[in-house]
């Protein structure tokens, strides 16, 4: 047994060394997931809590009040004024392309002090498209609130009813939290499935696996060495992603890093089984490539890699809960950002264990050395 494990250790060591010499493998294991992290991270970090509207502001009034009001709106956090728009035609054109959410028009009589009145008055208009009526209505009521504050400066009244917003000290998940665990799942798939699926057919074509088969090397030794070396490269890749997410996208890790590492290793072992099964079964690339795409792509979309599963219809959520990648992504999110520990994610660990047994049972059965 000791000799058999020595075999595994040497094979693991050489596999890992090979990775550090192979630029292409490094690109796919480390840089490729990082590119996705940058893209999806930038997309989802913009909407972290604060609502804002992109609007065009058309000031047709010449009054001092109107210019003062314009300045005030420009400094507001709620409104992002597109200053490049100066007339209604370009504003409508931009709105039809959804580049802005709405148009605020201050008509020519806005802010004029009417005869017999002590203070300025006027009516602003908000223009929005049919397709974004929700945004338009929200925009209207936000602006109404702004006016209400203004009004009390001119007319002192005490409204009988009012509402005040109060922030609870409870954190909810940001969309980046979902994105990040999904991207970790994506890189685990990349490592675990596409790694062996690309390498094994080539090794078979060159007769390298066949040559190894003339030695007493056993399938389990070969699998185990691949598992350990993939876990090592996976650990590096995922650690880098955590570092980038914390530094650049303000990821707050609530969980224990050791538990996250253990869970990540178990996930890589299980998902790698899919790659070993496909790569081990296929005689050549022509068999390996289509099969891996058929299995991997639906899983990527249905397990919550690129968008969270709670957006799916209920029946689809029920089915996709049992896919191998789903407990990986859910578990990573629960551990990383929801502050759970390994004991609390029993269902995820259980599902990973069941898939582990099923997948490796298949992988051992279908493995071919040539």
């Amino acid at each position, binding site marked *: 047994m000791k*000799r*058999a494990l*020595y*075999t595994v*250790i*040497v*094979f693991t060591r*050489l596999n890992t*060394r*090979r990775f550090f*010499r*192979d630029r292409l493998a490094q690109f796919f294991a480390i840089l490729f997931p990082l590119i996705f992290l940058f893209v999806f991270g930038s997309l989802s970090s913009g909407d972290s809590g604060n609502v804002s509207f992109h609007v065009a502001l058309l000031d047709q009034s010449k009054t001092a009040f109107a210019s003062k009001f314009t300045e005030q709106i420009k400094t507001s956090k709620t409104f992002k004024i597109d200053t490049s728009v100066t007339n209604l035609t370009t504003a409508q054109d931009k709105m039809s392309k959804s580049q802005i959410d709405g148009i605020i028009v201050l008509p020519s009589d806005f802010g004029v002090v009417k005869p017999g009145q002590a203070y300025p008055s006027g009516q602003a208009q908000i223009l929005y498209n049919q397709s974004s009526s929700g945004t338009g209505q929200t925009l209207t009521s936000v602006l109404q609130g702004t006016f209400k504050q203004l009004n009390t400066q001119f007319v002192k009244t005490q409204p009988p009813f009012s509402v005040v917003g109060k922030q609870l000290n409870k954190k909810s998940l940001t969309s980046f939290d979902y994105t990040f665990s999904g991207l970790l799942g994506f890189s685990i798939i990349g490592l675990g499935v596409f790694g062996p699926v690309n390498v094994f057919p080539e*090794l078979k074509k*060159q*007769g*390298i696996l*066949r*040559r*190894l*088969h*003339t*030695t*007493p*090397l056993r399938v389990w030794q070969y699998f185990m060495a691949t598992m350990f070396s993939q876990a090592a490269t996976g650990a590096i890749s995922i650690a880098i992603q955590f570092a980038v997410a914390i530094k650049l996208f303000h990821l707050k890790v609530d969980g224990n890093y050791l538990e996250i590492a253990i869970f990540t290793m178990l996930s890589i072992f299980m998902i790698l089984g899919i790659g070993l099964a496909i790569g081990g079964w296929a005689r050549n690339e022509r068999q390996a490539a289509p099969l891996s795409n058929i299995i991997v792509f639906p899983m990527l979309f249905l397990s919550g890699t690129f968008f969270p599963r709670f957006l799916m219809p209920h029946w689809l959520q029920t089915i996709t809960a049992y896919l191998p990648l789903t407990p990986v992504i859910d578990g990573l999110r629960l551990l990383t950002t929801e502050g759970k520990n390994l004991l609390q994610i029993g269902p995820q660990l259980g599902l990973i264990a069941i898939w582990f047994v099923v997948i490796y049972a298949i992988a051992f059965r279908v493995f071919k050395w040539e």
Partner: protein
Amino acid sequence: MTDAILKVKDLRKVYDDKAAVDGISFEVKKGEIFGILGPNGAGKTTTLEMIETMREIDGGTIILDGLNVAERPNAVKRIIGVQPQSPAFQDKTKLIEIIELFAAAYGEKVNAQSFLDEVDLGEKANSYAEQLSGGQRQRLSIATALVHRPKVFFMDEPTTGLDPQARRNLWDLTREVRDRGVTVLLTTHYMDEAEVLCDRVAIMDKGKIIALDTPKNLIKQLLKRGFKKEQQVEQANLEDVFIDMTGKGLHES
């Protein structure tokens, strides 16, 4: 024959109702270089692969060093070394690591450098396998097949595609392996190779062995049957010219 290390009896292999190997029997003596000759498709490689435990045996028995190959493939693997037709190694792996890897496949730790020195690749220990020439790859492959001190060494058409210098070098290496007491079983379709290298040869055709003897005896028997070759006046051939002009040494960087 009591000193036979390999005994093959009525060996059969059938592909789609066609017998690729059709009930052949032969024995290989300990410490000899035994060649299996024949045209492509004669069943040479299939025979070799069945002895190497790589193909299922459809009929007959193979006893290798007292082990029944069909029953104890793993024990057989520990006493054989295999040189494939076109050896290949994984990229980005140093020669010294490749030797370590193959030794580890047998659960053994060896002095990898000495194995590389034996096949004149000592200086290349830290090169990657993909930087080797065809002949060097063949030599590396021989080194990997000897890491566990096998009793029988199999070579499947070892010199196909090599230049004359590399071929001669490989013949020398094969003799060295034999001189260490390792029995060598090789297939080839080069008759000159069989003539200079093999102690005995079996000629196969259509799955059967049609002749088995030393090269010298086979030639003698042919001459006895009244065979006459067109008289050759030249005392040398084109290969002799080639070797004379380009030297016997290996041409490689």
